[in-house]
């Protein structure tokens, strides 16, 4: 929390993007989170990613639940639409919003408590439905907002700030998403913007549920020695297995980018992600092998990051249910509500 607002003045060389906006135009209110919170870095990465993509802010919907992480949509894209849902219920709201307006670009921000405890069922079904949303799970291993209780992602054996040991198994968002059929699964670290920004961009371009689990240290309650979600621990154990570069549709893929261990996946909107595999045996387009590899490396305490899995044949909810591209609110009334004669006909089919 700071008392003064971030001054509007900016660096003289601040660039404008294709739609004439500066990075500062993608900011929101000044953060009220603790100084040094990982969530704020993620906010900065989101701002950078949207700015680089030249997304008009008013075409975006920001959704969240409850928690420090869920507060952050207030801190970016001040001109976007927003919905701050009940604790753990953001996926349902997002599903409804996506159904009502498939044209909106949706970003959901949640926490490990919001997503993996109270909201686990909600998250599961949104994944299953392949709702077209970029879903960021800002993972700090604790309930930050309620003062640092272990969350469902806390690793067994890690300790609280006071030294208490967590005895329960952890739910790993990435493994969960893979088993539930997620079509885009990544892990990153708030302290690694070079990795995070292109992941966010690819996730936004991906048609379907793009899930990024982001280790985001809670500097106040979970940045101590016994924590496995601290800045120091993550830096020591993070291993980037697939480095993803996002290439916007207008840009051509150069042969240089195609070289070596690179694999390219075209996204729905004509953009590309090029995947540089740092680990040889890894294949980010093979769900089962990805799952097995992540499991295996977890046993030696490696935190694998990067674009871990991507399905090139993703069909999102709107496509599956043949929803119109147009927002429902914009459809002519007759089309939205075809009248009792049509209803009669429909019911007749079930008699």
């Amino acid at each position: 929390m700071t008392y003064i607002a971030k001054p509007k003045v900016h660096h003289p060389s601040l660039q404008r993007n294709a739609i004439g906006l500066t990075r500062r135009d993608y900011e929101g209110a000044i953060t009220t989170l603790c100084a040094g919170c990982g969530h704020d870095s993620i906010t900065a990465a989101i701002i950078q990613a949207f700015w680089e993509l030249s997304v008009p802010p008013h075409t975006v919907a920001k959704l969240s639940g409850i928690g420090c992480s869920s507060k952050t949509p207030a801190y970016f894209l001040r001109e976007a639409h927003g919905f701050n849902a009940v604790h753990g219920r953001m996926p349902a709201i997002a599903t409804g919003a996506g159904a009502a307006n498939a044209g909106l670009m949706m970003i959901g921000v949640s926490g490990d408590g919001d997503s993996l405890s109270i909201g686990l069922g909600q998250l599961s079904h949104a994944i299953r439905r392949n709702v077209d949303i970029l879903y960021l799970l800002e993972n700090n291993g604790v309930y930050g907002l309620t003062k640092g209780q272990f969350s469902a992602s806390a690793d067994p054996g890690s300790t609280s700030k006071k030294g208490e040991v967590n005895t329960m198994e952890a739910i790993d968002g990435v493994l969960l998403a893979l088993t539930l059929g997620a079509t885009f699964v990544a892990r990153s670290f708030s302290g690694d913007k070079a990795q995070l920004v292109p992941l966010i961009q690819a996730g936004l371009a991906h048609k379907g549920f793009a899930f990024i689990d982001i280790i985001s240290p809670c500097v106040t309650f979970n940045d101590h020695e016994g924590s496995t979600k601290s800045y120091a621990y993550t830096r020591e154990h993070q291993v980037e297995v697939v480095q993803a570069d996002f290439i916007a549709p207008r840009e051509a893929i150069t042969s240089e980018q195609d070289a070596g261990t690179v694999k390219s996946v075209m996204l729905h909107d004509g953009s590309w992600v090029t995947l540089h595999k740092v680990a040889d045996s890894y294949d980010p387009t093979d769900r089962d092998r990805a799952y097995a590899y992540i499991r295996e490396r977890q046993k030696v305490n490696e935190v694998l990051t990067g674009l871990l899995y991507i399905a090139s044949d993703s069909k999102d909810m709107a496509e599956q249910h043949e929803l119109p591209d147009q927002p429902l609110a914009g459809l002519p009334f007759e089309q939205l509500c075809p009248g009792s004669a049509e209803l009669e006909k429909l019911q007749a089919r079930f008699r």
Partner: protein
Amino acid sequence: MPRTDVGNPDYYHKVVDCQWACPAHTNVPEYIRLIAQGRFSDAYLVNRESNVFPGILGRTCDRPCEPACRRTRVDGKPVAICRLKRVAADHKDDIRDRLPTAPKTRNGKKIALVGAGPSSLTVANDLMPLGYACTIFEKGPRPGGLMRVNIPAFRLPEEVLDEEIGYIAGMGVEMRYDTPVTSLRALVESKEYDAVFVGSGAPKGKELELPGRRDTDQIFIGIEWLESIHFGHIDTVGQRVLIIGVGNTAMDCCRSAKRLGATDVKVIARKTRKYFKASPWELEDAEEEHVQILENHSPVRFVVENGTLTGMEFDTFTAREEGGRLIQEPAGRTIVPCDTVILAIGQENAFPWIERDMGLEFDKWNMPVVDKVTHMSTRPGVFFGGDAAFGPANIIWAVAHGHQAAISLHHYCQGIPVTERPPDAMTLTSTKMGLHEWAYSNNYSPAARQKMTHVSMPHRFSKMTIEVEQGFTADQTKEEVERCLNCDVETHFTDPLCIECDACIDICPVDCLTIARPGDEADLRQRLTAPAENLDQALFVSGPLKQTGRVMVKDENVCLHCGLCAERCPTYAWDMRKFVLQQPYAGVTFIPLEAVGR
């Protein structure tokens, strides 16, 4: 790039752009904060310590600080540093009992000073409190040098001069007016004085020997003409006046001509505006008074008909810029009609009263050989300062010279080598008052630079002595002080505390900060959050950080000193610390921080 040594006072001093640019290193942000608090007397005394003449300089200073001001790089216009100085001087209480005094018992040493300009007066100001007996020899009837006889009263009222010179003379300086020194040898060899300071200025205006120059009495040398106006010897001028030259003297001449009744005043420039010597604000003030400036005119001859000056002939040119150079091509001749011509094409030094065989070396330009640091000539015990030392400059340089020369004079008289210079020192104090509270106004004010109000046009011409600038109102002062970025409240970094959370980088409104892989400076400058292209502005570089071995880099260029980095830092790795430069003066030295431990 090695870790920046912030223990060297120069590093943080340089961040305070204005103070670094000020020849006397006035603590600008400190006095602006004092003004903001309504502590005008304190603000005045902070000024006086380094620049000695806040009231005079608050009206006339050449203000090298303003083009240097960081605010210029942030919103295009510097803080009105100079005019705020005047606010302190105008609104202070009676400060006489807070001024330095001379001790009852003198130290037995006697100093002779030639000329009562700002350089000599500064020397006396520094040496009197140490017990020296100072005698100033002045050719004219009153003290002040060019400040009095050349700077017109509509820019600098006499009362201000009298007051501030009085503070120095009042310490018991022996002032010998109407006493020109006609032989330096006689003065030195009289053995009456332990050392001599020459502050006689650059008293000669340059001539322009062209056909017709000697055929009329309506051609004047600028600085002599201004002096004659000051002494009342001249109180009229022709209707149409040409001023040759476009420096600050020319600006005073053209505006004075207006006040003597000229209706058509033209300033003649050989080149284009970009190359004018006059300060932009002096040009602005002259043009506000409907003085016309003719560019690309080069004088050929004075047109004199039957002993009467009727005009001046010029070669004219077309001009364009090519590769940063001015290309001028002839465009014919023209005669500009006029009744009076004032030559304002520069000043020269003249020392007819210094014997060339007294062991005091002169160079090929007929200037005394003077050491840039000690101000001593090649004749031990004879020191030079102000315009006399290195040619015409300005008041604040004369003051800066005076301080340095005073240190040398003191050393010389006490048997300490003059080359032994006391070092600059500093203090650095945290301004943190609470979680989000700082001991300075850290919020950025978007206010625009305040515009000085001027006395109305016809009225200001009615008398030579009507001061044109009216000074800032209380409301203007309130806005202007908040424009200062408090550059002396330094962003101070403690390497081992940083956990590389990026909070400072993300919050910084002007993209000053980056955590980067180490590299040399040229490489680093390209790899920052915003490229650091202003090479005059330093990069701060930390040592390797604990978690990744990367380094924290700060580009000082446009930092707002808003303190947000320090507010958002969870570990206090960044802190906002107030830097105070401890400048040595004659008889005042400071112990560097290193020596006392940190």
